[in-house]
C-alpha cells in the first residue's frame, strides 16, 4: 500500500476507478465511431432527445451518468454495454479490475475480475 492508497479505502478507490474507466471506454468508443461514421455528441444528443450539453457534461465528468445512460450511449454507437461479475475464488481476495476493450498487463493471478466494455 502506498501513501496515496492510505488516503482512501480500497472499496471507494475501486468505485472511483470503475466510474472513470467506464467513462473512458465510452469516450474511446465515441472517438472510434467519429472516425468510422462521423458520429458526434450533437448526433447522439439528437438521437436520445436531450441537449448536447448534457452529453458533453456526462462524458467529461462534470455530471454523473446513470447505468441506463451508459447503455443508451453504447446503443447509439451501435454497441452493447456489458458488465460481468465473476465469482470470487478466494475468501481473502483483493478485488481486481479489468476493462475488456483495451486493457492489458493484468496481474498473473487475479482473484476477482470486473469486466466492463463497450462492444
Amino acid at each position: 500500500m502506498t501513501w496515496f492508497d492510505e488516503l482512501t479505502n480500497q472499496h471507494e478507490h475501486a468505485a472511483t476507478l470503475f466510474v472513470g474507466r467506464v467513462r473512458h471506454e465510452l469516450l474511446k468508443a465515441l472517438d472510434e465511431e467519429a472516425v468510422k461514421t462521423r458520429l458526434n455528441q450533437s448526433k447522439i444528443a439528437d438521437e436520445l432527445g436531450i441537449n448536447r450539453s448534457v452529453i458533453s457534461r456526462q462524458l467529461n465528468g462534470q455530471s454523473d451518468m446513470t447505468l441506463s445512460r451508459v447503455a443508451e450511449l453504447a446503443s447509439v454507437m451501435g454497441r452493447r454495454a456489458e458488465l460481468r461479475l465473476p465469482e470470487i475464488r478466494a475468501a481473502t481476495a483483493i478485488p481486481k479490475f479489468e476493462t475488456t476493450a483495451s486493457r492489458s498487463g493484468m496481474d498473473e493471478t487475479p482473484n476477482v475480475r470486473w469486466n466492463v466494455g463497450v462492444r
Partner: protein
Amino acid sequence: MSTLRERRLDQSLILFEMNLQGLRATREMYLTPAVKTVICTDLRSWKSEWDTSETPFKQFSSLMDRYLTGERLNFEESMHVMNPVTDGIWELITADLRIFGWFYRKNVFIATAINLARVIKTHNLYPGYKGEALRFRENVKLAPPKCVPGGNINDVV
C-alpha cells in the same frame, strides 16, 4: 548524480504510485514535495464546482489511473500544452483540477503544482504555475535533456 533515482533518494522528487486494481503502470509520474503535501492535506477536502459525485480527489485518482496504465489521453482533453509550446510545460486536466509540470522523457511526467481550476482562473495563476515549473526544471539536478520539447502529444505519451 543526475538521475531520477538520485532525486528520489534525496526526496526532491517523489514517485507517485497507487493501487491500479490489478493493472500495471506503464508510465511514471513524479511529484515535487509541495505537490505531495497538497495531495495529502488539501485534495481530499476540495469540492467540485460541477453537479457530480466525482470529487476532485476521485477525479485525480481516475486521471492517474488512465495516465499510469498507458491509456490514450489525446481525445478527451485530458492534457494541454501551455504557450509558448517550446517551453514544454503541460497541464493535466480533470473537470475541476489542473496539474502543471513537464515530461522529462516520454511517459515520464514531473508535476510541480496542482490546484482547482476555479481558483486558478479566478486569480489568474497560470503564469505563476508555469514559471514555477520552469524554475524547478532549471534547478533540479537531472541529466539533460531535461524536457521533451514542443507540444506534440505523441512525443510525450
